[in-house]
């Protein structure tokens, strides 16, 4: 059986106050948080320093914030991360004299999510890596919210990240957007074009294979399940080979491919229990990588406990007659 201990750590990001707690409560209780953007009032003042190249967006942001009855003082924001990293070193410097120093507590950033979704978890991890706070709204697939239908009319699926009323859809697309829009360290994608192409390739490979094959393991029966198990292990072994002896897919640092894959590890217990297999026995390096990732706050905070995922999976199978 997959032994698992979730590390509970206090958040190091002091400014992630009520928003983060609300997200936790929503995920656990499966409640909908109703936020009306125009009536939202922040408890604190937010000090933001924006780069000159982002002045257009900051103007829009300021306009929206003034509509939301917030008061913003333009000053210098010194982040915890900024101090830890000894000041931000931008890989891209739009204007030499001004840097974007982040921890921007976004008042107008909403994530539409469904807590067991590995795709939603990717976005949470990416936002946590960048130290960006956001409002998390849980969707009910039996009754999709009008916001979801409005923001993602093409697919009507989560996750959707809504920034200043503008939606970004598709999880890896959102992760790349987060990496670019908050372009301080840590970078999720490498800067070298070839390495970026490789990261995108593996992200795409994970998208094409892990969920669809994995589903046959936890919902399938008989021959279909056996084939699914075989293909699932093959897929994980290909990924394990790509990982090699590196600590992360991103090399020395956690990155895009790690973000793409690690959420599925919260489903490992479900795959193993339903499929009667041991992922650790088949792919020990991959499981070691998963444990290494769980030592990161951004991952530990964003992944539900595997037993909760298993309970959800069992309820799903029951309600869909898949037992």
């Amino acid at each position, binding site marked *: 059986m997959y032994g698992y201990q979730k590390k509970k750590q206090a958040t190091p990001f002091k400014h992630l106050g009520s928003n983060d707690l609300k997200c936790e409560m929503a995920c656990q209780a499966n409640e909908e948080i109703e936020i009306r953007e125009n009536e939202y009032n922040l408890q604190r003042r937010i000090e933001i320093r924006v780069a000159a190249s982002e002045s257009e967006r900051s103007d829009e942001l300021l306009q929206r914030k003034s509509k939301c009855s917030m008061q913003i003082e333009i000053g210098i924001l010194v982040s915890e991360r900024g101090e830890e990293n000894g000041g931000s070193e931008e890989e891209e410097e739009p204007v030499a004299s001004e840097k974007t120093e982040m921890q921007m507590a976004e008042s107008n950033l909403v994530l539409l999510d469904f807590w067991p979704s590995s795709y939603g978890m990717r976005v949470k991890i990416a936002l946590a890596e960048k130290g960006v706070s956001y409002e998390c709204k849980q969707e009910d697939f039996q009754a999709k919210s009008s916001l979801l239908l409005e923001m993602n009319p093409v697919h009507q699926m989560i996750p959707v990240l809504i920034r200043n009323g503008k939606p970004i859809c598709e999880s890896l697309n*959102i992760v790349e957007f987060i990496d670019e829009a908050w372009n301080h360290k840590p970078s999720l994608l490498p800067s070298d*074009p070839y390495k970026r192409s490789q990261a995108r390739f593996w992200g795409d*490979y994970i998208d094409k294979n892990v969920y669809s094959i994995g589903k046959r393991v936890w919902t399938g029966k008989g021959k279909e399940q056996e084939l699914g198990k075989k293909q699932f292990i093959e897929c994980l072994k290909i990924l394990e080979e790509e990982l090699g002896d590196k600590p992360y897919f991103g090399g020395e640092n956690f990155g895009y491919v790690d973000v793409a894959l690690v959420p599925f590890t919260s489903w490992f217990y479900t795959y193993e229990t339903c499929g009667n297999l041991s992922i650790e026995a088949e792919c020990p390096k991959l499981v070691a990588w998963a444990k290494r990732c769980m030592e990161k706050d951004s991952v530990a905070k964003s992944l539900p406990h595997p037993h909760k995922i298993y309970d959800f999976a069992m309820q799903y199978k029951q309600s869909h007659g898949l037992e």
Partner: protein
Amino acid sequence: MTTKSEVKLLGAWPSPFVLRARIALNLKSVNYEFHEEIFGSKSQLLLESNPVYKKIPVLIHGDKPICESLIIVQYVDECWSSGPSILPSHPYDRAIARFWATYFDDKLFPTMRSIVGAQGDDERKRLLQEVREGLALVEDAFNKISKGKAYFGGDQIGYLDIAFGSFMGWLRVHEASNGVKFLDQGTTPGLVNWAERFGTHDAVKDVLPETGKLMEFAKFMKAKMAAASAPK
């Protein structure tokens, strides 16, 4: 200046995915060697450079292979950054471009291709309707993204022009095979005019396969598939 042998593209003339890579390389004025894969077999070079999927296109830059057409286009854009930009520069616009390109590949084009194998008239009609609805979304997206300019990319062709435009030849083949018009002045005027401009663009016109040739190829493929599945 890149010497021809530095950049190789493994591909095949009918493939819309290969076409994407060719247009991107043309836009950046990159010299490259085109290796035409023989239909029905896979070269040793292809198997070695794309062991995961064994599919074309594969771009080989120096000794480094890059696979998957949209990933190749992004690589070309980032590697030859002095040429005209293929992707927009603003993160939000880039996200929108990536979203629609994924939509084409995951939804629109697979639906279009599946019309060939439709079981019965009802399924055929349903799929045709799905394609029309999808194209209506793309027409709407074109109007919003182009902001009245010639291309999705604005004044110049960009990522979405390449991603969508590469399929125009096959779209015409499906139109002719089914006796329908997917793009017409009544329902998708923006895209009709855009397709005209795209097809005559310098980076596109010499590599765009003729619809007639594609139709012949489609007939050849259909006959081959029928022969393969015929009872012995």
